[in-house]
């Protein structure tokens, strides 16, 4: 059996759940009292879970966003898209599996889909570099953005990466150039762009495909200028202070709405998206479809103006101007 991934903060909860499972596996027919106790325990657990997940700290949310069982881009595509055709390659160097690119249909809307793609096991994660994209991945994404624009297909992106890969070859092949060009292209794309933060939103590698006319954030997805660990090791010289730093970085879904960067927080079931993925898929499908419907009625010049204005407004500055 696959070893379960238990996050620190949910350990008490998981211990109770295990106990409950054990009790439920017993034959309680002869013991109706115990049976009612079991149900009472179950109810207590539900309350505890609700409470735990209602008040997660930013750092705890980061843990949830990285949970290995958390639904990934490919799960969303499988669940909410039909008629999927995956597209491959950047036409210049390779096919980066850390980016999923496809033509797909969501609730009757024909779209192009882009997403960071993590693996579900070690071998997949090696092939997909744990969702950390190389320049050719961003270039594949750009190719598909241009294709989408050419044929009037709206773009739906799923954000889930620890960050763009920091490696020698990535630098050699122009990681910064690829990200910058993707930002530029995405900012000016003449089709609607709906971005969904489903897990990790690690810095420039996330942003390269991670903004548009709508940004929908799952409750436990994060989006950050830098990973809390890296931030802590720079500012505190101590990666162990990640939890503390996470609270400063304004990186949760709710923070992003507050900053005017994201449009809405999509609630997750208590326990995180992986506890009830179908529920989350349904909600994402509905929200994306709504966004596509709303944006579908906007002309492409107007769409461009609005997207620019949206970006333009982000930032908080002081001013000594007269």
């Amino acid at each position, binding site marked *: 059996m696959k070893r379960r991934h238990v996050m620190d903060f949910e350990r008490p909860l998981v211990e109770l759940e295990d106990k409950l499972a054990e009790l439920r596996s017993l034959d309680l027919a002869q013991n109706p009292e115990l049976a009612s106790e079991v149900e009472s325990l179950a109810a207590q657990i539900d309350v505890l879970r609700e409470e735990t997940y209602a008040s997660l700290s930013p750092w705890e949310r980061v843990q949830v966003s990285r949970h290995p069982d958390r639904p990934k881009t490919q799960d969303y595509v499988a669940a909410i898209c039909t008629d999927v055709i995956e597209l491959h390659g950047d036409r210049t160097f390779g096919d980066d599996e850390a980016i999923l690119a496809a033509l797909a249909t969501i609730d009757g809307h024909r779209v192009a889909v882009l997403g960071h793609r993590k693996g579900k096991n070690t071998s997949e994660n090696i092939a997909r570099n744990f969702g950390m994209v190389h320049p050719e991945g961003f270039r594949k994404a750009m190719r598909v953005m241009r294709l989408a624009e050419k044929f009037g297909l709206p773009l739906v992106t799923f954000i889930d990466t620890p960050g763009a890969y920091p490696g020698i070859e990535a630098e050699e092949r122009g990681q910064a150039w690829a990200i910058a060009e993707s930002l530029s292209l995405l900012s000016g794309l003449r089709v609607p762009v709906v971005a969904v933060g489903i897990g990790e939103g690690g810095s420039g590698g996330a*942003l390269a495909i991670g903004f548009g006319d709508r940004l929908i954030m799952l409750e436990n997805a994060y989006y950050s*200028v830098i990973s809390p660990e890296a931030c802590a090791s720079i500012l505190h010289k101590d990666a162990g202070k990640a939890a503390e730093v996470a609270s400063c970085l304004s990186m949760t879904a709710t*923070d992003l709405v507050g900053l005017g960067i994201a449009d809405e927080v999509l609630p997750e079931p208590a326990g995180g998206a992986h506890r009830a993925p179908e529920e989350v898929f349904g909600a994402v499908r509905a929200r994306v479809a709504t966004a596509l419907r709303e944006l579908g009625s906007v002309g492409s010049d107007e769409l461009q103006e609005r997207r620019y204005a949206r970006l333009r407004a982000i930032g908080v500055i002081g001013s000594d*101007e007269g």
Partner: protein
Amino acid sequence: MSISDWFKAREARRYTSAKGAPARGADLPDGVWVTCDSCKRIVYDGQLAENFRVCPSCGHHFDLTAHQRVELLADPGSFTEFDAGVTSTDPLGFVAAKPYVTSLASARERSGLPEAVVCGRATIGGHPVVLGAMDFRFIGASMGSAVGEKVTRTFEVALAERRAVVLSTASGGARMQEGMLSLMQMAKTSAAARRLAEERLPYLSVLTNPTMGGVTASFAVLADVILAEPGALVGFAGPRVIEQTIKQHLPKGFQTSEFLLEHGMVDEVVPRGQLPARVTLLLDYLVRGGEVA
């Protein structure tokens, strides 16, 4: 502008350009000696100043302040700063190790600048441009809301007035103390650069040491022609992050301008003394286009 003109102009402005604090080692009276970071030789500061702050022994390019960059590139007397009042606040109330407001205050004091980038209208070789220069002394010239806003306005002013843009970059990356507000400046500045490009107005960038992270991965490399100073470190991920990730030492020269040239990422590595003439000639081509001379 010829080099000797530059000398003259520099002399003329030496005691009038009070705004920008001098670079590290330069805030000493004339006649003081400084040690070259690269060859470790002792250099007479006056000689360094005459040589665009390039070590006469080894060619090492000393850091320049934003105002020294402006002085280097702009036609004498042509620069008029705008938006000097656009400054960083502390929107997140960020405190880690020390409060962001403290970092900002000390950056302002040390650099004499309100923010990490200086932007203004100027002419270069007679061409009307908007010129921006980043100053590494100001929290590593990291990009927060204010830097993002000023760079965005640089592109917008150029677009409105049909000027070219010239940006001299230096940066440690995004300013983490402003969290996601900083990250989004990458998209914002890139969007503004794209608008300029769509109107076919020229944009030249000069990458100086160091230009890393979110600044490299946004407006800095979206230029029509990308120049870099010799030996400048330019890249996305910092060398230490890469070493930690790959668990091995980086090759010598990795992420230098010369490395980038070889890997097809920049158009030319230009020694500082040749920059004004180079930028002027490039503007001649891109501003005037196919118009017959």
